[in-house]
């Protein structure tokens, strides 16, 4: 089970979980400075690049904002651990008896916890970080960034949710058995219009 899809701010800031406050600040400032320099050196930004850089800035700000404060950091670690454990528990039960009431109950509990975790640590606290004085000073974050970041963050959060679900037990649909070689042939025949209109 890969935990990296559950946003890991330590990894984003290039830190370990036992990193000290000084290292957190040092890494954040250096990474933000490098990022701003990278953006500055571009003559123009495509829409895709704009979204990408906004997300990176927002993640660095959020990582620093969350990890530098003891209470926020501990809550973040606790929530993350809870979601990972719930996923593991649900998967174990679903493997043995996918149709059981217990599997359904665990799925709902996990889904709620996951949605709460992603909403809080992918959106709410990220936007809150954008209003923190130190983050604003370091990153030059402004209302323009916040306006565009809301859309980008929502997109990223939902995409993450969807990516996490790709590896989870199926419940809303029976598990598909996909022959990807066959899929490739079907795609080729659709593109080359090798099928008659009714097929």
């Amino acid at each position, binding site marked *: 089970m890969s935990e990296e899809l559950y946003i890991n701010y330590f990894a984003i800031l290039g830190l370990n979980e036992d990193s000290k406050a000084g290292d957190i600040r040092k890494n954040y400032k250096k990474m933000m400075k490098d990022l701003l320099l990278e953006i500055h050196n571009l003559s123009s930004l495509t829409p895709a690049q704009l979204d990408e850089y906004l997300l990176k800035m927002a993640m660095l700000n959020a990582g620093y904002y969350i990890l530098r404060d003891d209470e926020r950091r501990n809550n973040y670690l606790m929530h993350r651990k809870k979601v990972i454990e719930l996923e593991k528990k649900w998967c174990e039960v679903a493997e043995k008896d996918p149709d059981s009431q217990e599997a359904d109950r665990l799925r709902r509990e996990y889904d709620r916890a996951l949605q709460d975790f992603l909403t809080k640590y992918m959106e709410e606290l990220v936007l809150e970080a954008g209003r923190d004085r130190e983050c604003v000073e370091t990153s030059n974050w402004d209302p323009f960034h916040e306006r565009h970041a809301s859309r980008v963050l929502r997109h990223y959060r939902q995409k993450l949710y969807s990516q996490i679900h790709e590896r989870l037990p199926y419940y809303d649909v029976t598990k598909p058995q996909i022959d990807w070689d066959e899929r490739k042939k079907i795609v080729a025949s659709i*593109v080359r219009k090798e099928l008659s209109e009714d097929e």
Partner: protein
Amino acid sequence: MNKKTETKKVVPQDIINKAFAKAIADGDIVNFRFLFLPYSPLREDSTEDIYSIKYSYLLPSEEEEETPRFKSALALVSREDIKEHIQKQLHKKGPPQLPAEPLLMLADNAVKQGKYTSASQAYELLRIRIKIQDLFFQQGEEELAKGNISNAVTAYRIASELEYDYGAFPEPLPAVPKYQEQALILHGEYREKWEECIGYLPIQAFLTEAFNYLFLSPEHASRILTKPVDVQIEFLVKLIQNLDPKWDKFVENVNKTIPLLQELYQDIKSRIERVAQGSLWEDEWDEGLDIEKYLAIPQILLGRKITPDEWWAYLKEIAYLHPASALFVARQLIGKEKEIILPRYDPNNPVAIKLSLPPLPTLYPEPHIN
């Protein structure tokens, strides 16, 4: 006391099979999911009647029943395991679990019929949408490598239109083209110089604007923007023709605007000359131009007059009918506070040439005011 006996209606298995087969053959995810809902007419405990005229759309006609697509779908839902699963879900209290194999067939049928939002929803439910998108992009790359631009365009277009808008509120939805909105954003700023107008941009900048506008995601555009310029040009031409089979109508309308464009630019040139000789700008420009005459330009471009008679309204309508038209038009002031949309592009723009767009009158090399 008399006991009331409840009789549940019985829906014959062949009707259930046909209803599901039709939804699958049509690539219709909405109907497919509807058939499982608590008030579905296929459920024994529902008060809805499948034989009612209002549900006739759920059942196939005789002609539909003869198509290979329907027969394949019917054979699938008639299979014992699928039939049993469907029956179980129709009797279940609570959210149904959709059967994967029929859903996959539905998604494939939807793609074949150009019902991309339906297909993307079905693939997303199966959690394979991103992989399917990648397969179409890969196929597009293979076709490009072989020089089959038309096939590459088909593949890229399908891949792009299978996109999901994860930023949609309150929940993710299939992304859909919104050219009428995108065109307004594209022309949000009034371009004061001819060289700034989209159709006059240097070719790579033009191609970048075009692909970012026509694809549903900048990420998709960036895939084609890495190709050599001549490939991008061919691809863009074919993409525009693929998106708009009636592109010739727009070309025809552009041709019709030429006489009025000539008059407009001649008029503007004379007024600039008179201002240079001492006339007042307010007299020549603010009060001078025959606005009613030149308002006909966007009307001819669209093919009809609309209300409101504003440049942005015409732009929205034209972009809806002919998505790529937004790349070949510009805003133009024709008085103190009146603007129109008119055709404007470099006569040497290779994309314009290949799309049969005619050379247009200009104000060059004389000085011009926009």
